[in-house]
């Protein structure tokens, strides 16, 4: 594995050479302030912005939101089907670790047998240059899904921001080739660089603001200890809008439909689809084997956190946290994991009774309950004492609540 230094001043000349006959995709700030991976029209007039996580993943460049599969033409002698021509060589620059991990996941889905022709055509000539995250953002939890903040595999080149220069490591033969082809841009790493880089990696790992216990959730699902109320709570907040699936870098489900362009011609398209849609599993006669919002959410989270885990030994979630920001109802994967982890199996029944009573009485919030349950799981202290210690309720509050409960028929 080659290691080198690339001065920031030389990024633009380097990309100019690298992307000469390719489309170049990198994070750009739009005039309205959004940061998105975008195709760069002109290297000179575009300012690549590596200051934060782009709002969308790079999924669309390998698996577009809408893609023509072929056109059809019908004549009296039958049909002519003309497949769309393949994609062009692509350089993906400045990809975050989560987004690279998501591409590895898509590789598994689209390139097992049979291969997806359209994905393959784009993927086979794609160079991935990633950048590790020195500072995780508010909703990130790639540490829990083991997909960041720095990667060991998956990239052709990985950059680490050392201030005025990038530490560059090659992850694959293609990366080595690039370093060899344009040696003028790279200089050897010093001990100083190595130390600084290591320090940054350590700090990044401890910089996560959220702790989303993905593996614990997997265990709990495997033990069948997720209570139905968790699914129901989330289902009540799900509008089935599909936003989570569209923003998710590893959601690869799609639907296919025909769009007539004239009475005798048309195109067959595929578009992203979402398993939270009712029509996703509904059949032509109207029967739907996954008929309720609860079942759909269960299917969604189980797929990502359980079945993928079982099959690939890692979750189908890369911890990018984007679904946290997109959902109207707060039905994101991190929320689900938090809720699952906050439940303790043996005490679940009892604790939910007291907790629910306090929530019903308006004395505590659900968020506060989860926090308290988390602490109880850690310390083994009774839930009531924890809530009192947190200064949320008094002894009288709890007593009153329980008394009310006794009075009920």
């Amino acid at each position, binding site marked *: 594995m080659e290691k080198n230094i690339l001065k920031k001043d030389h990024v633009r000349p380097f990309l100019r050479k690298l992307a000469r006959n390719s489309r170049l995709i990198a994070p750009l700030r739009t005039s*309205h302030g959004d940061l998105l991976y975008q195709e760069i029209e002109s290297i000179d007039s575009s300012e690549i912005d590596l200051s934060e996580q782009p709002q969308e993943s790079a999924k669309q460049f390998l698996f577009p939101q809408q893609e023509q599969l072929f056109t059809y033409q019908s004549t009296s002698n039958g049909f002519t089907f003309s497949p769309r021509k393949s994609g062009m060589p692509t350089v993906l620059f400045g990809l975050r670790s989560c987004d690279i991990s998501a591409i590895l996941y898509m590789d598994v889905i689209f390139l097992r047998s049979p291969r997806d022709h359209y994905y393959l055509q784009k993927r086979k000539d794609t160079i991935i240059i990633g950048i590790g995250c020195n500072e995780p953002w508010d909703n990130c939890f790639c540490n829990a899904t083991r997909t960041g903040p720095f990667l060991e595999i998956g990239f052709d080149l990985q950059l680490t921001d050392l201030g005025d220069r990038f530490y560059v490591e090659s992850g694959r033969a293609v990366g080595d080739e690039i370093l060899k082809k344009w040696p003028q841009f790279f200089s050897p790493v010093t001990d100083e660089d190595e130390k600084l880089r290591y320090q940054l990696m350590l700090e990044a790992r401890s910089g996560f603001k959220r702790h989303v216990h993905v593996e614990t959730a997997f265990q709990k699902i495997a033990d069948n200890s997720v209570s139905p109320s968790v699914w129901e709570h989330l289902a009540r*907040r799900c509008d089935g*809008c599909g936003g989570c699936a569209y923003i998710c870098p590893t959601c690869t489900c799609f639907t296919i439909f025909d769009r007539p362009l004239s009475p005798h011609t048309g195109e067959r398209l595929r*578009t992203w689809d979402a398993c939270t849609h009712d*029509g996703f599993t509904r059949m032509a006669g*109207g029967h739907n084997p996954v008929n309720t919002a609860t079942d759909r959410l269960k299917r969604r989270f189980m797929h990502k956190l359980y079945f993928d885990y079982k099959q690939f030994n890692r979750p189908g979630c890369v911890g990018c946290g984007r679904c946290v920001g997109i959902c109207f109802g707060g039905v994101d994967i991190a929320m689900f994991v938090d809720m699952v982890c906050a439940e303790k199996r043996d005490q679940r029944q009892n604790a939910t009774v007291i907790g629910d009573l306090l929530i019903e009485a*308006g004395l505590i919030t659900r968020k506060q309950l989860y926090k308290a349950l988390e602490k109880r799981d850690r310390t083994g202290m009774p839930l009531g004492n924890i809530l009192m210690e947190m200064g949320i309720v008094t002894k009288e509050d709890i007593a009153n609540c329980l008394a009310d409960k006794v009075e009920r028929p």
Partner: protein
Amino acid sequence: MAGLATTFGSGAMTNSINEITGAEVIFVIGSNTTEAHPQIARRILEAVDSGAKLIVADPRRTEISRSAHIHLQLRPGSDIALLNAMMRVILSEGLVDDAFIEMRTENFRELRKHLLAQDIDQLAAVSGIPASQIKKAARLYAGAQKGVICYCLGITQHICGTANVESIANLAMLTGHVEQAYTGVNPLRGQNNVQGACDMGAIPGVFPGYQQVSDPLIREKFERAWGKALPSEPGLTITDMTHRGRENGIRAMFIMGENPVMSDPDASKVEETLKGLEFLAVSDIFLTETARLAHVVFPAASFAEKCGTVTNSERRVQLMHQAIPPIGECRSDSEIIMELAGCLGYSMEYENSAEIMEEIALLTPIYGGIFHDRLETCWGLQWPCPTRDHTGTPYLHKYSFARGKGRFVPAENIMPDELPDDDYPFILMTGRVYHHYHTGAMTRASDILSREVPEAVLEINSYDAEEKGLRHGDMVSLRSRRGEMEVRVKPVDTISRGMLYVSFHFHESPVNRLTNPALDPVAKCPEYKVCAVNLEKA
């Protein structure tokens, strides 16, 4: 609109959307918030998650009512009875905010007298809700420090729409729940720019900014800017034009971005009126049912193809940028109007929408400080924003109501114009579904959205369905005094017996051929929410 104007002096959300999150009690009435206003519902659910109490009044067991602490499943059209009952409870249990009433309101004595003459049990019987539930809701709302009311078309689309709104305002003022942050009365607007359209004077009696056409000084201001004499009488309302166009002497019409053949009540009558015109021009992004009747159709640019502002429910004026150039021969609405005006001999020359905004600011005090360059750099400005250095107004009526003192306007319960009888024994309500927008002109062109909800579905109580021998998926023919249509039924337990519910997005099931064009006398809003129908297996 009219209801809040008579009571508060301004018809718009008194709070900002984000303030809902901080409310202590939220009272949702006549709003299917989760489906129709998901962004508002999101705030409501967040508030509930942090401990807020939620009261929902709706004849249907909607999604939002499932999260409610109290669901008041009232009879359609009995909102005033419910609100009066709540106020009666508040009055007799001494939960009124005396200081607020004294300092900020007028005409309380009238309301008090009116309420004291009411009997709670009788009102409860009219609304179909147990008195104990009403009392619980009244105490909860009145007892809160920060109480927010959200209402929508379930309140306004009745013949007593204005009185409904006035009653809501009465309730809020009685308990001092206005004029503050996290506390107020909030009409939710149905579309991204309904508020903006009203603000710009798309109401018969006003110029932009709710400036009355009857006021000679105002008229003079606009005449100087536009160089033309302007009428001093209010124009016609929509139903005056679409239902009584001939009587009102209308010979030609220009319809922009509306599909009244689908969306207006007694739609057959609308179609008849439009077909009888000497000339009809329609401007829309798709060839709608209305556009099909036109002599001339202007292909309009979609939101993504033009630049301009929209004003949302919370009075926030936001700038939308052009994302792609117009496809084909499409033109933006302003270009179409300008060119048309030019052909008609009135020159309208504006370089771009920013210049139009400058004229709005010049002539409309509440928009006085809103310019495109300011909007570029922020998430929008909330009117009133009178000057360039004003930062906008998150909540209305701080220090005092827009009209000075808030005015209590007592109301009696008014029964719907058309009640069920032997011939038409069911009450039909109309509404929306999450995946479609209005008459479906746009959303039905999306493959995924139309797959989600491919056709209209008539919800019927499962007991009624059983009695009628109807199974899920059966086609029925649904009849009212005005028209009929065919639709598939779905037995549910989310509505009471005797009621039916259907959405109006689908031209195959044009429910507005059935609905009642009876109007609220003030706001002129038709009673879409209640009409009497009968059904039989098709």
